[in-house]
């Protein structure tokens, strides 16, 4: 036994020594989501293949954003790879802060990346970040409760059906809420949900002259519908529920429906964590008959800050982590349901993966979101649940705080919209749009 382990160490050492001339140590900043933590656990596979070692800086989403933004705007160089999203990538790419990913290797097959994802992670046709996983949003619902309520979920429901079904499924005595939705403040939390929802009600953030649109009827309709439905059928305290809180409620069987990120599908159908794993159905996010659905589009992607000394090694890592080989590696260890979804076309052509119950609906949802044309009336910005301008994150966080105060019953919808209108216009003025 001992001899074998000594031999194994010796081999490992010689392997590393063999590639020592090129071996680098790269620093990667990432978010503490499940798929990234899994990637962190598989780093050894990368090291044994390339000789490069990796140091991880894993942070909670808000801290990560603050950390990488400070570093990129000051050209700090603290990280060789940053995990960023569809919101940051085009802005940073336009500023020349990211290394263009236009020379990835042949076997990486960059054309295999889902066009919707590649589009959202590019600026002027150049890819600046490779998607690690991509998502849209969809309805996850309890088939058993739906049946009990005597209803049948269509593939592409409307909001009025969802509201009716939510009311029918609600059973407060048994702690079952017909619908769970995000209400938590933050542009990436409740802000993302209400913005995507407002698209289907014909609302938009800005008109073509960058004037805030919170004084228009569609926004009022959106909030009135949302608050009305949540008060009828939502969980108590939904004003502080974000992705994670709702996930936990759904897994504990306390939600009839949940409209959220498609990646949640693998969590709610995983019998280890979810008490309702075998009775979950999926449907497209609702619409309102205006031609736009209320699903968003997002990707967590890996990008290289311009100016890093270790560009070569960083590219090798990105090719490893977002490759089809990586997907197969995860599939072999954790099963197909747990591979990072939504990034590659070939994944959705793989018969093994298409057996996963939520695969098709995830793809359909992703394909039905169009960041370049997300609102009913024309808008000057790109993005479904956000507007890809640098000011948006700050503005939308404040706006969503006003909305959350409505959800908590602390102010009226009109008050919140009035404040949102004023603060948005003010911030846009400060930034020089108006």
């Amino acid at each position: 036994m001992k001899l074998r382990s000594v031999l194994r160490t010796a081999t490992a050492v010689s392997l590393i020594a063999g590639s020592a001339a090129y071996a680098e140590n790269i620093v990667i900043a990432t978010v503490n989501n499940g798929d990234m933590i899994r990637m962190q656990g598989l780093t050894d596979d990368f090291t044994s293949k390339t000789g490069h070692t990796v140091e991880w800086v894993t942070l909670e989403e808000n801290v990560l954003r603050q950390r990488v933004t400070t570093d990129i705007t000051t050209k700090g160089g603290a990280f060789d790879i940053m995990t960023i999203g569809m919101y940051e990538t085009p802005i940073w790419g336009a500023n020349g802060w990211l290394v263009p990913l236009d020379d990835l290797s042949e076997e990486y097959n960059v054309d295999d990346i889902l066009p919707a994802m590649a589009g959202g992670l590019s600026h002027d046709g150049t890819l600046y970040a490779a998607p690690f996983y991509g998502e849209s949003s969809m309805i996850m619902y309890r088939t058993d409760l739906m049946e009990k309520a005597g209803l049948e979920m269509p593939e592409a429901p409307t909001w009025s059906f969802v509201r009716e079904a939510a009311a029918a499924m609600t059973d407060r005595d048994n702690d079952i809420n017909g619908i769970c939705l995000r209400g938590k403040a933050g542009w990436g939390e409740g802000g993302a949900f209400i913005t995507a929802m407002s698209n289907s009600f014909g609302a938009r953030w800005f008109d073509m002259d960058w004037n805030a649109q919170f004084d228009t009827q569609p926004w009022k309709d959106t909030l009135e519908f949302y608050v009305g439905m949540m008060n009828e059928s939502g969980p108590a305290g939904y004003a502080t529920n974000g992705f994670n809180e709702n996930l936990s409620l759904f897994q504990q069987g306390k939600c009839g429906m949940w409209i959220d990120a498609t990646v949640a599908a693998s969590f709610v159908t995983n019998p280890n964590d979810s008490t309702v794993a075998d009775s979950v159905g999926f449907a497209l996010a609702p619409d309102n008959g205006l031609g736009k659905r209320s699903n968003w589009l997002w990707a967590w992607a890996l990008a290289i800050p311009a100016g890093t000394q270790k560009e070569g090694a960083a590219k090798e890592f990105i090719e490893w982590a977002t490759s089809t080989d990586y997907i197969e590696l995860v599939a072999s260890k954790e099963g197909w349901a747990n591979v990072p979804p939504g990034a590659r076309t070939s994944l959705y052509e793989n018969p093994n993966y298409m057996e996963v119950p939520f695969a098709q609906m995830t793809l359909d949802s992703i394909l039905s979101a169009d960041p370049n044309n997300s609102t009913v009336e024309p808008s000057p910005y790109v993005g479904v649940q956000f507007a890809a301008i640098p000011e948006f994150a700050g503005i939308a966080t404040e706006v969503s705080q006003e909305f959350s105060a409505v959800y908590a019953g602390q102010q009226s919808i009109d008050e919140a919209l009035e404040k949102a209108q004023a603060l948005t216009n003010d911030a846009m003025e400060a930034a020089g749009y108006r």
Partner: protein
Amino acid sequence: MATQHSQSAARIMMAPAVILLLGWMLVPLTMTLYFSFKKYLPLRGGDLGWVGFENYTRFVSSSSFWPAVATTLIIVGGVLVITIFLGVLLALLLDQPMWGQGVVRILVIAPFFVMPTVSGLVWKNMFMDPTNGFLAYMWRAFGAEPVQWLSQASMPSLIMIVSWQWLPFATLILLTAIQSLDSEQIEAAEMDGASWFSRFRFIILPHLSRAITVVLLIQTIFLLSIFAEIFVTTAGSFGTKTLTYLIFQRVLESQNVGLGSAGGVYAIILANIVAAFLIRIVGKNLDA
């Protein structure tokens, strides 16, 4: 009896600390002032030129400004009142003869060692969560509807969390002060038939005034700049945005360094008003 020699030596010895602090204060202060007159947007290429007092007027005219000032003062005031009031009671209690006094004291001071981030996270998730939190289970056990702590009672919850962190500090100082009280004086008063209240009012409380001053001064300095507790619990929603938090939003979330710097200047002004006020009322208490 300072000689000429020791005067100049003293100046030399003081120099490193004064110069360092002067640097630490002046360099950032100058930079803050400089940026506050600039349009400085890191995500739009950085320095976009001078704008005069525009950032200052914009920061104040924002609908969040005055509520943020009020929130800051309410949190500082609320925590001070609670910690000093409960601190006195707790100190009086711990001063009584009992078994295991040392252990109880250890239990009481423990929260002071907990990182602000950790205490925010623990209270938010493990205690105040309306579904799985400890308090929610307690409420349900008594047949009550769980409270939505951080949304419907956001300010009281926040004040409670911060008070939990600072109560040990107040208790410890006040307890030490009480223990140094001359017990014969109390006994004499007791013999004279003074009631418990008048003993407290006329002997104990005056004796504690200096300790209370210290608690007031030190806590105010730290409370004016609390950030982590708000960041991890409410992230500034539900009326918990303090001035410090508002500046954080302007600088890091909105990426408007000029505007945030103007806010920083206002925060310094507010801090100095509070400090001047404090020094007026407590300054003479500190001169031994």
